[in-house]
């Protein structure tokens, strides 16, 4: 008798790809292209205004859309739907062109088939954000977008798969982690159809559509990690067997077998959480005090060196150290003892809800205080080009979408909800793996500490100084 397959057992649920209208559109050949073209137009406008418009962040489309609207919408999208940005990513539009030019291409090196490069790029991106004050520079923001296009094209040209998305892109890396909370996930309607399928077009591609760029096999998908929600699998499947199904909240995070047990994957989650805290910390008075103290104390010549030290510790060394300590203590208190790697992999998913809530609170703050500013900014852009249809002067008072006094309570609610989600995942993972409460305690203390740190951080006044052009 043949061994039983471990293909995923789909459960009945809402399948967005079967919804009238939108389902057919998403499955169609141009379903993704429309969204990508819209974002490409937005990217073109951002690059144009970033290079040629007022070099003043509050009045430039580049800085307002990227650092306010993108950051706010991406969090909302991940929380309410899924990886919508990657679904509509304009940076991979030249993918087909690159493949036509390159032919088969080489495979991504085996030694790099992990998240270490992605972690390094993500940490570097957040350091550059602080050091170069990307948020305050329309010119640099435009260059960031061009760099994304260039990197995506170069990697698609050089390699046979989509290594940019899966192994490099910091936006995608961030979104992959956030999407582990998302309510939608790719799956298949019937596993028997997949078992009998010869061509496996969902991953190999078909004449109608490319296969999965990140090489996920649809019937075995248990996690949104590495899923760009491109729906190429759905378009390529000759049996129309791929579904985009709703799932219970926190289901992926509380399934112990949903993620592979790898060091790089675990550390990625820790970096995601700690960069959320450090990114907010970088906008508060203590960071300037610390920067000044380090510069004086260590007699540093370059202010960037102090920032590298601060954010290198906060974003890499501290999570690495704490992860080892917490997992090590948890392992020491558990019986029978599992490996350190397995202990780390078992409970690290519990950090995601709290980490996500920190990012949501921070990005949500900036979105809430400035979302409406896009109107006077666009108005100003039109005036710059001689279009006066909207009036002679922009209404610069348009900015916030809620009273300022609502913001801190909103942030605290997000943190508390995130903590609640993390607490649930910790308990569920502990219960399903028969881990004693004693062994879960270090993780619980960690979660309490992170939540307290986040609440203290958001209670600090915001302060932005040391902007590069003001030196």
């Amino acid at each position: 008798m043949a061994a039983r397959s471990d293909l995923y057992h789909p459960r009945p649920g809402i399948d967005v790809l079967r919804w009238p209208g939108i389902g057919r559109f998403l499955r169609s050949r141009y379903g993704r292209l429309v969204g990508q073209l819209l974002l490409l137009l937005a990217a073109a406008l951002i690059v144009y205004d970033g290079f040629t418009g007022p070099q003043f962040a509050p009045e430039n489309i580049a800085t307002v859309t990227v650092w306010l609207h993108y950051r706010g919408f991406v969090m909302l999208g991940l929380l309410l739907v899924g990886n919508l940005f990657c679904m509509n990513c304009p940076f991979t539009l030249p993918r087909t062109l690159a493949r036509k030019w390159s032919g088969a291409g080489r495979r991504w090196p085996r030694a790099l088939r992990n998240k270490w490069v992605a972690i390094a790029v993500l940490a570097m991106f957040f350091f550059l954000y602080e050091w170069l004050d990307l948020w305050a520079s329309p010119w640099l923001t435009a260059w960031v977008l061009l760099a994304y296009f260039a990197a995506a094209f170069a990697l698609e040209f050089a390699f046979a798969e989509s290594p940019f998305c899966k192994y490099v892109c910091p936006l995608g890396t961030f979104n992959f982690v956030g999407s582990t909370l998302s309510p939608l996930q790719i799956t298949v309607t019937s596993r028997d159809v997949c078992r009998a399928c010869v061509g496996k077009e969902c991953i190999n591609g078909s004449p109608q559509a490319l296969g999965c760029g990140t090489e996920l096999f649809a019937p075995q998908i248990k996690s949104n990690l590495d899923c760009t929600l491109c729906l190429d699998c759905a378009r390529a499947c000759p049996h129309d067997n791929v579904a985009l199904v709703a799932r219970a909240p926190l289901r992926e995070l509380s399934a112990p077998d949903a993620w592979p047990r790898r060091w790089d994957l675990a550390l990625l989650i820790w970096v995601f959480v700690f960069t959320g805290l450090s990114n907010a910390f970088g906008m508060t008075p203590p960071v300037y005090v610390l920067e000044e103290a380090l510069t004086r104390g260590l007699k540093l010549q370059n202010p960037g060196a102090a920032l590298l030290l601060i954010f290198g510790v906060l974003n890499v060394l501290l999570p690495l150290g704490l992860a080892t300590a917490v997992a090590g203590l948890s392992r020491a208190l558990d019986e029978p003892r599992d490996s350190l790697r397995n202990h780390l992999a078992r409970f690290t998913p519990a950090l995601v809800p709290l980490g996500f809530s920190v990012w949501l609170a921070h990005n949500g703050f900036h979105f809430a205080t400035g979302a409406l500013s896009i109107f006077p900014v666009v108005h100003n852009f039109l005036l710059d080009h001689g279009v006066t249809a909207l009036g002679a002067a922009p209404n610069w008072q348009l900015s916030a979408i809620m009273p300022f006094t609502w913001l801190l309570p909103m942030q605290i609610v997000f943190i508390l909800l995130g903590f609640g989600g993390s607490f649930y995942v910790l308990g569920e993972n502990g219960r399903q793996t028969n881990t004693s409460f004693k062994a879960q305690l270090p993780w619980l203390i960690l979660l309490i500490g992170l939540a307290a740190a986040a609440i203290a951080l958001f209670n600090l006044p915001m302060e932005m100084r040391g902007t590069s052009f003001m030196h």
Partner: protein
Amino acid sequence: MTWLLLAALLTLTAAGCARASQQDADAALRIGMTPIPYPPAVGQARLVLHVTDLAGVPIDDARLSIKGDMTHAGMTPVLAEVSSGTGGYYETPFEWTMAGDWIVTVEAWLADGRRVRERFELTVLTEDEAACEDGSQE
């Protein structure tokens, strides 16, 4: 299609290199700004602006529009207007809502319709830092 879009992107960027704002100022004036108290700190303050022509002759009939922004996007700007001066000096209440780096844009419109725009960069201190400054100066 991809070729067209990439070409459009390059063309827009190239064309934009020559972009000139339709709103560029066209008057020959000088504007100076002094925040009071100085150095500025979070909270209520006053701005004193000095408007003269290039020869230093004070101008009292300009209409000034003042916009204070922080260097990052997303903060509601602080707006003020003042329409008459004495000896070229104009004064208006102003609130520094947050500590950090600010850019204050002052636009002056003359009676004949000409205007000029100046930007001033400054750093607003926290109340504690301002108190330390006061203490060190005593």
